[in-house]
C-alpha cells in the first residue's frame, strides 16, 4: 500500500446538491454542498446517522442518481461515462443474488453481459469462489447458502470483472457480529490483493474505523460532510480491534458524530 504521494483521483465530487421531489410538498434536500476527493486505491467509509444521505452519495458516485447541482467525476470522466465503461462493482446490504442462477452463474453474470466466453467465465468464477473461500459452492443455488455466504458471493460477483471502483452500501449490515468481523478481514485482504478503490457505507463506528484509510462523517438534514478523519492503523488484523490506537480513532469518529448532533 505504498501509493504514490499524489495518487490519481478515483472520485471527485464537487459542489454537489441532491434534492428529491423538486417542487412538490415532499421535497427533500438529501445532500448539500458536497465536496470530496477519493484517491485511487483508497478505502473510504461514509458514516452518519440514518437518513443523512450516505446511500444517496454512493448512488451519485455510481451514476444511479444524477446530482441536482454540481458534478461527479470518476477516473477523470463524468460518472455516466464511467458507468458505461463498466468501471463499477456494487454490493448492497441485501446480497441480491438471483435465485434462478446457481452461485457460479451469479458470479458470471457481469462477465456474460460483457460477452466473455464460457470457458473464461468458468475460470474466473472458480477463481473468485476461491478468493471468497467458497470453492465448493459454485453448483449450489443461492437459497442453499447462509446469509454470510450469500454476501460473499455478492462480493465475488462485484469483483469478478475487476472493477476499478467498488461501491458498497452497508454490505455487512445484516450479518451477525462474528460473520461480520470475519468478512471485514476478508474484504481487506481482497482489497489489498486487487488494489481496487472502495467506497463503503456503514453506520457502525467500529466497522468504519477498522476498514478505512479515511472516514467521511456526514451530518443530517441537510446531508453535509461534517469532517473527514484519517485512520492510520497500518495493516489490520484481529488484534487491531483491541489496539488502543483503534479505540482512540473510534472515539474521534464518535465525537465527530456527536458534535454534529449537538450542533443540530
Amino acid at each position, binding site marked *: 500500500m505504498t501509493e504514490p504521494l499524489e495518487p490519481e483521483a478515483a472520485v471527485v465530487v464537487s459542489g454537489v446538491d441532491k434534492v428529491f421531489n423538486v417542487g412538490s410538498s415532499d421535497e427533500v434536500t438529501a445532500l448539500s454542498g458536497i465536496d470530496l476527493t477519493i484517491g485511487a486505491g483508497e478505502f473510504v467509509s461514509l458514516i452518519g446517522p440514518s437518513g443523512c444521505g450516505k446511500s444517496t452519495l454512493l448512488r451519485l458516485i455510481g451514476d444511479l442518481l444524477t446530482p441536482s447541482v454540481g458534478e461527479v467525476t470518476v477516473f477523470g470522466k463524468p460518472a455516466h461515462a464511467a458507468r458505461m465503461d*463498466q468501471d463499477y462493482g456494487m454490493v448492497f446490504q441485501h446480497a441480491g443474488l438471483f*435465485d434462478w442462477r446457481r452461485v457460479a452463474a451469479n458470479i458470471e453474470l457481469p462477465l456474460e453481459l460483457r460477452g466473455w466466453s464460457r470457458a473464461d467465465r468458468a475460470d474466473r468464477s472458480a477463481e473468485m469462489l476461491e478468493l471468497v473461500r467458497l470453492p465448493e459452492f459454485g453448483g449450489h*443455488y443461492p437459497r442453499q447458502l447462509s446469509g454470510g455466504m450469500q454476501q460473499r458471493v455478492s462480493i465475488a460477483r462485484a469483483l469478478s470483472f475487476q472493477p476499478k471502483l467498488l461501491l458498497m452500501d452497508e454490505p455487512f449490515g445484516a450479518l451477525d457480529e462474528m460473520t461480520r468481523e470475519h468478512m471485514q478481514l476478508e474484504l481487506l485482504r481482497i482489497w489489498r490483493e486487487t488494489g481496487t478503490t472502495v467506497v463503503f457505507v456503514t453506520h457502525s463506528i467500529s466497522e468504519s474505523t477498522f476498514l478505512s484509510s479515511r472516514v467521511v462523517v456526514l451530518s443530517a438534514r441537510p446531508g453535509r460532510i461534517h469532517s473527514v478523519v484519517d485512520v492510520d492503523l497500518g495493516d489490520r488484523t484481529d488484534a487491531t480491534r483491541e489496539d488502543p490506537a483503534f479505540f482512540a480513532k473510534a472515539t474521534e469518529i464518535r465525537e465527530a458524530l456527536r458534535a454534529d448532533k449537538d450542533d443540530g
Partner: protein
Amino acid sequence: MIRGRLAGIGPPVVVGVAGFGLWEGIVWGFGIREFLLPRPSSIMDRLVENWPVLRHAGWETGRIAVSGLVAGVLAGVVLALVTTRFRTLNEGLTPLAIAVNATPIVALAPIFNAWFGITGTLSNQAVVVAIVFFPVFINTARGLTEVHPDELELMRSYAASEWAILREVRIPNALPFFANALRVVAPLSVIAAIVAEYFGGPQDRIGNIITSSAAFARYDVAWAAIAVASAVGLGLFAAALLLERLVMPWRLVDGGSENHNTPGREK
C-alpha cells in the same frame, strides 16, 4: 424426495376413497333417489357403459380447452411483455384489462356464437381464450414489474441494456407469478369450454352431454360426463405443476435462507 412425493399422495387418496364411500353410504342409507344424487357406483356403471361416447366427448372438449388455454396464455404473456417494455402502454392497458376482467366473460358466450359461428368450435375456443387471458396477463405483468430495486440498480451499474434486464431479471422474476396463474387457469379452461358448449358449438361434447342427459332426467349419465371433465381438468392442473417444476428447478431445492422467490414476497 421421491418418498416425500409419494407420502404427499397418500392423504388425498385416503380422503378421496373415504369420501366416495361416505357418499355411497349416505345415498344408500337414507334412500336418496338416484334421480337426485346417483351413487358413485351407478356413475361408474354409466361411465363404463357410455365410454366410447364419453371418451370422444372428453377428448374433443379437452382439445377446445387446451387450444384455448395455449392461445390465451400466449396472448397474456405477449401483452404483458409488451406493456412492461412500454410504460405508457402499461398505464393505459392495465386498468382496461382489470375492467374487462371484472365482466363475466362466460356471459359473452352467446355473443361469441354470433361472432364466430354457432356450429364450429371457434366460438367455444374464444370463450376459453377470454377467460384464460386476464389472469395470465395481470400476474405476468406484475412479475415483470415487481422486481427488487437493488436488482435493477445492480444491472444498471453494469450498464446493462433494457433487453438484458428483461432477459436476466424481469422474465425469471415473473416465472413464479406466471406459474401461479397457470395453476389457476389450467382447470378453469375446462370449465370455460363446458360452459361455452352449453350455448353452442358441435353437439358431441361434454357440455352437450350434460345438458341433454339432464333434459332427459339421465342424471347418472350427466354425472359420468362431469367425472370425465374433472379428470381432464385434473390432468391439465398436473401438467401445469409439472411444467413449473421443469422450468424453475431452483424452487425445488431446500433452503434455509429467507429470500424464497415467491410472488408477493417482501423484498
